């Protein structure tokens, strides 16, 4: 066995030694026959589990580590807190609902469809109340969008902190939503009373105890905002706002109000707690920026990453990651193995959807030497994901939100990966 592979990779190599012996030269030769092949295994002889064993299936037990995780010291109570999507262990672009990150301000609530009411009021011709069933009778659309918390990567402003893509970049998920365009509901109530729509706002509010409310400018409300009731084909999960949540494509997750109960047309922003004391960005000189809604282009390598060390010998290796932009499509992702000295264009898993996650791959060989892995996203506006230094030079280190810097992973020669910052 290669001397480079020891200690920290032991766990991974158990049971795959024969395979791991391979080298760049070509297929490996086994010293003895593999009993997994030569002996009849139990699963190849006895019968398995029947249908209906799990009427709603959960991932197989071997995948029990692929779950949302919380960083306890971040918040005072799990009821007003956040956890992280295990992006390091996922592939493709769609996030399964069961492991998509949660963010609650007063806990997730159980709200029955029968008890759901959605009010549209304020500067409308006729204030209306919709039932859940009413929503299902409007023409609906399907769209894939990412939802990223404005605080994603927020712990990394002052320096590398958390060792895992899940923790540095996991406040994000990407789902296929089914819902009614918000403009359809506004039209139903009638916007005549609002008069000139420039400078008008839509205030949206949830039914939970926090009754989180945000102001959305009318232009956006009439553009691509969805009142969604399905995600990835099934009902929303409780933790994502069952039965109805707002989808605000490309904009910070806090605006995606869950358990939506009210939509009010106003002539001014409400300046609620969530758009003044929180979700505003303090710059170096102490002034703050408000209404920083759009999530700028960003990317991260999900594998290898600290939770996904390299568990194989030098040779063929897939580097994989995610890229996204609140301004539209991802057009290109570059990957560097040397901390940003040289870059290579990555292969996009699929030409990016607008405001949705794009998967990228860099296929090649690992020479067994240490690497400083970085990825850099570009979107259709020509915007290039900045380095952490560029961001700090522009804003300082105190803004908490909207950290879309280039991430660096240090992969050592044993394949162990660590979150670092580079010059």
């Amino acid at each position, binding site marked *: 066995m290669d001397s480079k592979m020891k200690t920290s990779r032991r766990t991974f190599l158990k049971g795959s030694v024969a395979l791991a012996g391979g080298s760049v030269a070509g297929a490996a030769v086994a010293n003895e026959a593999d009993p997994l092949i030569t002996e009849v295994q139990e699963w190849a002889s006895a019968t398995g589990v029947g249908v209906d064993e799990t009427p709603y299936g959960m991932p197989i037990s071997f995948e029990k580590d692929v779950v949302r995780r919380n960083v306890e010291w971040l918040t005072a109570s799990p009821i007003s807190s956040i956890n992280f999507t295990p992006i390091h262990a996922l592939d493709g672009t769609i996030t399964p609902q069961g492991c998509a990150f949660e963010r609650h301000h007063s806990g997730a609530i159980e709200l029955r469809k029968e008890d759901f009411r959605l009010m549209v009021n304020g500067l409308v011709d006729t204030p209306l109340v919709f039932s859940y069933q009413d929503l299902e009778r409007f023409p609906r659309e399907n769209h894939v969008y990412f939802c990223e918390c404005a605080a994603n990567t927020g712990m990394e402003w002052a320096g590398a902190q958390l060792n895992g893509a899940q923790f540095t970049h996991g406040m994000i998920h990407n789902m296929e939503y089914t819902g009614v365009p918000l403009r359809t509901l506004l039209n139903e109530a009638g916007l005549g009373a609002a008069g000139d729509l420039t400078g008008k706002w839509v205030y949206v509010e949830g039914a939970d105890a926090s009754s989180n409310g945000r102001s959305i400018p009318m232009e956006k409300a009439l553009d691509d905002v969805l009142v969604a009731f399905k995600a990835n084909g099934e009902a929303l999960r409780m933790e994502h706002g069952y039965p109805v949540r707002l989808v605000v494509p490309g904009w910070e997750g806090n605006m995606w109000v869950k358990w939506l109960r009210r939509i*009010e047309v106003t002539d001014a922003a409400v*300046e609620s*707690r969530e758009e003044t004391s929180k979700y505003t960005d303090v710059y170096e000189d102490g002034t703050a920026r*408000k209404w920083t809604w759009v999530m700028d282009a960003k990317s991260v390598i999900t594998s290898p990453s*600290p939770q996904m060390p390299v568990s194989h010998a030098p040779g063929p290796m897939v580097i994989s990651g995610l890229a996204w932009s609140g301004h539209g499509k991802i057009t290109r992702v570059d990957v560097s193995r040397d901390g940003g000295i*040289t870059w290579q264009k990555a292969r996009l898993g699929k030409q990016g959807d607008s405001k949705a996650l794009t998967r990228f791959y860099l296929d090649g060989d690992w020479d067994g030497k240490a690497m400083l892995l970085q990825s850099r996203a570009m979107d259709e506006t020509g915007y290039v994901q900045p380095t952490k230094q560029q961001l700090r030079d522009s804003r300082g280190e105190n803004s908490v939100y909207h950290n879309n810097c280039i991430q660096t992973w240090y992969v050592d020669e044993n394949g162990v990966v660590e979150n670092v910052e580079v010059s």
Partner: protein
Amino acid sequence: MSKSLSQIVLPVAGGTALALSLALVVANLDYGQNKISSLEGRLEQASMRADEAAGKAREEAAVTAELEAKIAEIQADAKVRAASNPGLTEYAPKRESGYGLGRKARTEEIAAWDIDVLPDGRGLPQGRGDVFTGEEVFAEKCASCHGDFAEGVDNWPVLAGGFDTLADKDPVKTVGSYWPHLSTVWDYVHRSMPFGEAQTLTPDETYAIVAYILYSNDLVDDEFELSHENFSGFEMYNKGGFLIDDRPEREYARWSSEPCMENCKPSVEITMRATFLDVTPENGGESVMNDAKADDTPTFVAKAATSDATGGEAETAAPSPAIDPALLASGEKVFKKCKACHAVGEGAKNKSGPQLNGLIGRPMGAVEGFKYSKVFVAAHGEGRIWDETALTEFLAKPKSYMKGTKMSFSGLKKEEDLAAIKAYLKSFGE
């Protein structure tokens, strides 16, 4: 297509030139006038035909160009549509007249839900509250998390102080130092607080609490009274501290040039390594250690999702068979009201309230490491015990049973809730 058309036009023009030169040669020879005139006639005919053909060709070219423009337009249109629509569904149709769905909202329904307050004070109900009253209400309903002086307990928000720290390394963003509008404070306290008992404060209580928060920030004196009348005249300290998002001007243009691909910098050094190291799950690899100093920072240990903690606990703790599982389940539900401040079950730690394992039969004020209020310290000294009667009376009316308790909970009014919560707590040991 337009190219092939011009190829038709050229031979016709060439033919005209040939006919003309022919005519000149023929004129110099002494041929008869007839011949000449007949040739002239033919020439005229030829040039007429040529003109006709050229005209026709021009016409055809124009039609073709028009068609081509149309095709280009359709293609461009499709491109725009494809670009703006991710393509899972076509856009939903729009019915100008509406769908006639939903029903008219009633005035009292709008009044019940439309409680937001705008920066200019619109939306405020009538009412008033002074600092003195506010201090009492705050102590009763807010101080267990935010501290008696709004200084914040544990990780709960600090509401006071932090002035002139916004440009510091770790700015202290409080109501006083950071919040730009008083309306936000009123609206938030009124709609979302107290945590776990939202939307129970009266307008007067809210005015009083807000007045006290201003006082704790030294923004008003102790005789101040806040009301709907003087509300809009109040200016917050950091009112001018917010600018509208300027990333487009500040960053977008600078960060939109073709990025460097080779020799982008002379060398690279690691300047910092992650502080919190042990985040890899147990079965996902061994922990990574390096020389970063993690001693002074909180230990970060990844834990599996907590979803099964309470359910599993109830089972393993083996409740006595006399307890009805339905009662236990509704007790777990009632406990949601307590969860913000109290933990129960295996490994339960003190939060802003003490952990509740083995509560029944436990001496009052006995949990180690918890800072009890004076009244519980006294109860402990007297050797008082949490028995069923004491717990029932306390939970029904905490403030009257234990005058001076820090617990900001108004009490469980329903008998069945009291029975359920007791059954639930009992299941974690007696």
